[in-house]
Each structure stands twice: as C-alpha cells, then as structure tokens.
C-alpha cells in the first residue's frame, strides 16, 4: 500500500478512530453525513492538524508517528489538496495560484508550468483572472491544477463537486474523473453524497461519527448494506419492523405501523430489524391490478409527492411508513399519478435487504 493512515483523535464531540489504506492510482471515497469527521481525516493526513495518536505512512516515508514523536509539517508532506470551497488565494490570479505550488521549480519556469497545467484543464484563457471573477466550475479546475502542481505523493479532494450548481456539475465531474484516471498517486476523496462517492471512488468507505462503518465497492455497499445507516446513506428506503422466520428459508418482517414484507436476504431472522429497498426497485401498480407477478411484497400506499428529477420521477408514498419510488416519466403519465391517489407499491423479496435495527 502506498498510503497508510491509522488515526485516533477526539475532535469536538467526535471520537475519530480509523485505519485507511490506499494503493497507487486508486481512489478511496470517504462518504458520510456532514459532521462525521471526513474533513478532519484529510487534515490529519495533510498535517494541518495533529491527532492524539496515529501514524501516517506514504511510500514508506513516515509522515506522522505520534509514538516516535515524528510529525512532518504540511510543507514537508507532498500532498496535493483540493479544499472544500477550493480556498483559492483571492489576492492572486489563476496562474499565480497554481504557481504557488511550484516552489521546487526555478522561478523562471513556474509561469510556463502553471499555464501548462491550466491548459490541461481547459483554462488557459483565464490564467490572469482573479478567483472572484471565475465561475464555480472554473474555480474548481484552478484548484485541481494547483493541487496537481504540487506533484504530490497523495492527492486529497474535499467535496470537489459540492460547491457547484447542477448545470456545471456534469462537466466538473468529467474533469475530476479525468484527473483521477491520470494520477498515479493514491487519492482520498471526501463527499457527503453516496452517488458522487460511487461515481468517483474505486472503493467507498462509509464514515459515521469518526469511524468506518463499512468499506467496499459502491455496488457491494448498495447490495449488502451492513447496517440501516449504510442502507439509508446509499439512498435506499429503510423500513423498520419485527422479523420472524418464514417458510422456504425466507424471513417475514411485520412492519411497525402495519403490513408485512418478505425478504430472501440473510440476516437476523428474529427481533427488531430494518429492511431496505432501492427506490428504482419499487414497482407502482393501480389498486385494481391483479397480483400475478413475481413480486412478493405489496403495500397499499397513498401518493404524497411527485417530483421530476431529470428523466425520472420520484414518487413520495405513505404506506404504514414513508417510501420513495423512482419511475420513468411515461410510467408516471400512464398511471395518472397525482398527490392523493392510492396505489400499490410492490417489490421482490430478493430486492429486500435485511439489517439489524
């Protein structure tokens, strides 16, 4: 492993306690709600904060070892760091911001190298602009160029997409993916959005209150969430209830508030549990539809909201517990969905994950 970090520290009311490894050219996405300690983790690796106990190793160089009293200052750690909101120096124009990280080069070569980096990110024309006059997407690219200028042994990205409006996100995502593909350093990326983590990270570590609660590929996290927290964070609908074993190796869950669902998932088969299902796995049918399909779980529900998101429609439902279904525009038109209409929400027992409550 090229980057190893074992960190243990109390920050505010969070007890940070985790261990991370990232291989060269790989991107580990730290995903979790705000206040989980994600930015603190990046700070501890970059050296702008020091943990109570911990070790950080990069390419066999010891950056931090509290036991051996080694604590290399940030300027000695070679980290490319894209800050949340980018932290571009407001008093310097774009190319000077980039050149700030080129202290190793002779003065005469810095401008040319900075322009080269800006050009690589498609910003050559804005080299003389101050950050205040740049758009959000342009700022993000200057910040990336500046972080790359450092030619770090590690690349740290703190919410590289969250400061952008929906219009520039697609292009900015593409830029970040390009940078990730080309970089040979290990990358740690922080995001509060599971979809961003899934898109940008080779692996995702879900962080909650300073700890890694589950780590794996995005698809494995979504398929087998280890807890209701992870299920909820990955965007699944989470329902709570009491489990009991059923025939054919299935588990039946009596939902709090009424109704029952079956699941084929392995997990606790008795006691209080959470079941989860993804919104795009929920099928909506009219009330009078004949139950002839393979979906085992059918809950009558009332539509409480209908929201278009791109080419999809998110339908808020109230059954015994709230649900969200995601369907296509034509499907929504065919069903004639309006707020207040009553329908059946159904999904397969095999699409129902089961975790301890």
């Amino acid at each position: 492993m090229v980057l190893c970090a074992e960190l243990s520290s109390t920050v505010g009311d969070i007890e940070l306690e985790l261990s991370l490894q990232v291989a060269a050219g790989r991107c580990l996405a730290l995903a979790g709600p705000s206040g989980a300690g994600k930015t603190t983790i990046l700070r501890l690796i970059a050296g702008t904060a020091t943990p109570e106990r911990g070790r950080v190793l990069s390419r066999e160089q010891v950056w931090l070892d509290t036991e051996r009293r080694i604590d290399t200052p940030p300027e000695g750690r070679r980290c490319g760091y894209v800050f949340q909101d980018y932290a571009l120096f407001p008093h310097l124009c774009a190319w000077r911001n980039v050149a700030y990280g080129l202290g190793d080069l002779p003065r005469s070569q810095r401008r040319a190298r900075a322009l080269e980096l800006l050009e690589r990110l498609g910003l050559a024309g804005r080299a003389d602009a101050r950050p205040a006059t740049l758009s959000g997407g342009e700022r993000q690219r200057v910040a990336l160029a500046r972080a790359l200028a450092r030619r770090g042994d590690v690349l740290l990205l703190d919410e590289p997409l969250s400061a952008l409006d929906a219009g520039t996100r697609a292009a900015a995502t593409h830029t970040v993916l390009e940078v990730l593909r080309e970089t040979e350093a290990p990358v740690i990326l922080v995001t509060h959005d599971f979809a961003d983590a899934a898109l940008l990270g080779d692996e995702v570590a879900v962080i909650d209150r300073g700890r890694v609660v589950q780590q794996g590929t995005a698809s494995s996290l979504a398929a087998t969430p280890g807890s209701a927290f992870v299920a909820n964070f990955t965007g699944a609908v989470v329902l709570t209830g009491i489990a009991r074993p059923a025939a054919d190796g299935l588990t039946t869950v009596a939902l709090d508030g009424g109704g029952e669902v079956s699941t084929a998932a392995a997990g606790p088969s008795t006691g209080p549990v959470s079941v989860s299902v993804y919104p795009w796995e929920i099928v909506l049918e009219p009330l009078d539809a004949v139950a002839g399909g393979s979906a085992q779980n059918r809950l009558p529900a009332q539509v409480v909201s209908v929201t278009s998101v791109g080419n999809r429609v998110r339908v808020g439902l109230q059954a015994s517990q709230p649900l969200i279904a995601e369907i296509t525009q034509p499907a929504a038109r065919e069903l004639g969905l309006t707020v207040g209409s009553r329908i059946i929400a159904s999904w397969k027992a095999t699409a129902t994950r089961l975790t301890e409550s």
Partner: protein
Amino acid sequence: MTRRARPGSGTPWFAVALGVSLAVVLGFLVLPVLAIFVNTSPARLVASLGESESIEALKLSLETTVIAIVIIVIVGTPAAFLLATRSFPGKSIVLTLVELPLVLPPAVAGIGLLAALGPDGLLGGALGDAHIQLVLQTAGVVVALVFVASPFYLRQAQTAFASIDRSYMDASRTLGAGQAQTFIRVAIPLARSGVIAGVALAWGRALGEFGATLMFAGSFQGITQTVPLAIYDRFATDFPSALALSAILVIVSASLLLAVKLLCRGEALSGAVR
C-alpha cells in the same frame, strides 16, 4: 395627547428619535472642528505656515510619528499574528496587558515611561551605560508615541489576522510554503485592509499625542515640541496662532483618514479580498 404606544399605527416617533440622536452626536462632534476654521481666516492660516516655529513643529510631528509607525508595524505585525492565530496559556492576560495603554491616562503613561526609562528609572542605568538618552530628546518623543499608539495598531491587526479563513493558511502550507512564507505571502495580503486601518488609527493617535510626550520628553522647540505641544505653548500667549496651528493639524489628520478610506475602498472594488 396620549403617551401610549400604538403598535402598527405608523407613528414615526422612533425613527424621529434615532434621527435626533444622530443629529445631536454629529453637531456636538463637528462644532468644535468647525469653530476652529470659522475663527481662523485663510490668510492667518497661510501666515502661520510661514512661521519657522510652526514649520518646525509640523516637521517634527511628521518625523516622529512616521518613525513611530514604522517601529510599531515592524515589531507589532508578527506579534499581532501570533495573538490572532495561536492559543497559549495566559493568552487573555497577555491581551489585557497589550490593551492596557488604551485606558491609561496620558499623564500616567508619561510617569510610567520616566520611571522605566528615565535616568533614575528601572532601565535608566543600562541605557546610560549604552549612552542612550531618551528624556528631553527627540528619541523620547518616539518612545512616548510608540507606547500610546501601538495598542491601536495591535488590536486592528490582530482582528484582521483572526478573520482570515483557516483554509487559506492550510492551503499555503500544503503547497509547500513554510510558516514564515505563509505569513508574508498569504496572511499579510489577506489582512491588508485591516492592517491599513490599524496604521491609520495608530497614526492619528500619535499625531494627537500630548500628555505622555510632555511629561517624558518635555516641550523644546525643534527637539520635542510636536504640533499639539506647540498649540498648548501658544494657547496662553497667542490664541489666534494656536487656532491656526490647530486648523493645520485638523487638515493633516483628516487627509490621513480620508486617504486610508480611499485605499481600503479601492482594494474592495478591485475584489482583492474575497
């Protein structure tokens, strides 16, 4: 007439009260300044500028205040940065000590300086051995000015440094700049407008300094007699001349204040900060 409040009735009594309050404040503050100019004919002003005594006092005031400000900025800026960015045990005590000269009467400041740096003072012997004489010397004026004016600068600069977003400093460090380089290349430019405002305040205070200078350095024409001391000197004997010199001091101080405001505004317009 009823004195009961009638909410929502649109009675503008509160707005009127606010306006009256501002008018009283403004009138009270502007009247004495206005009176100086009303009582001084332009001819008298020009004539005063022709007197060698006035010129000497003005020159001495500018000289000593500029030297004092340079010392305050060079020594005080790193100190203000430290106070703004680090926490250490006893910091609130240090802050209080630094601000103490703000509330000291100038006479107390003068006595304190004499007791510390005078010939019989705490450090008097050491200074004497080094052949440094401050009392009744121009250097003594500078010492008095630094003492009374530096807290104004320190407070402003400290606030300016403290309001810099931490991520700018962190970014500088991760980009390979050490602490000193970060201070010079990021902290100072970002704190610029606050630092300039601090210079203006301290300079204004130094230009008007009277009590501590009089007690510590005396009032010798051409050596320690700055403009405020010259005004006081003439006040009993030649009131019109004191008035004219006062008018000159008002003009110098006002242009200083104005220049700083323009400097800060120009910076804000160019979008240099945030």
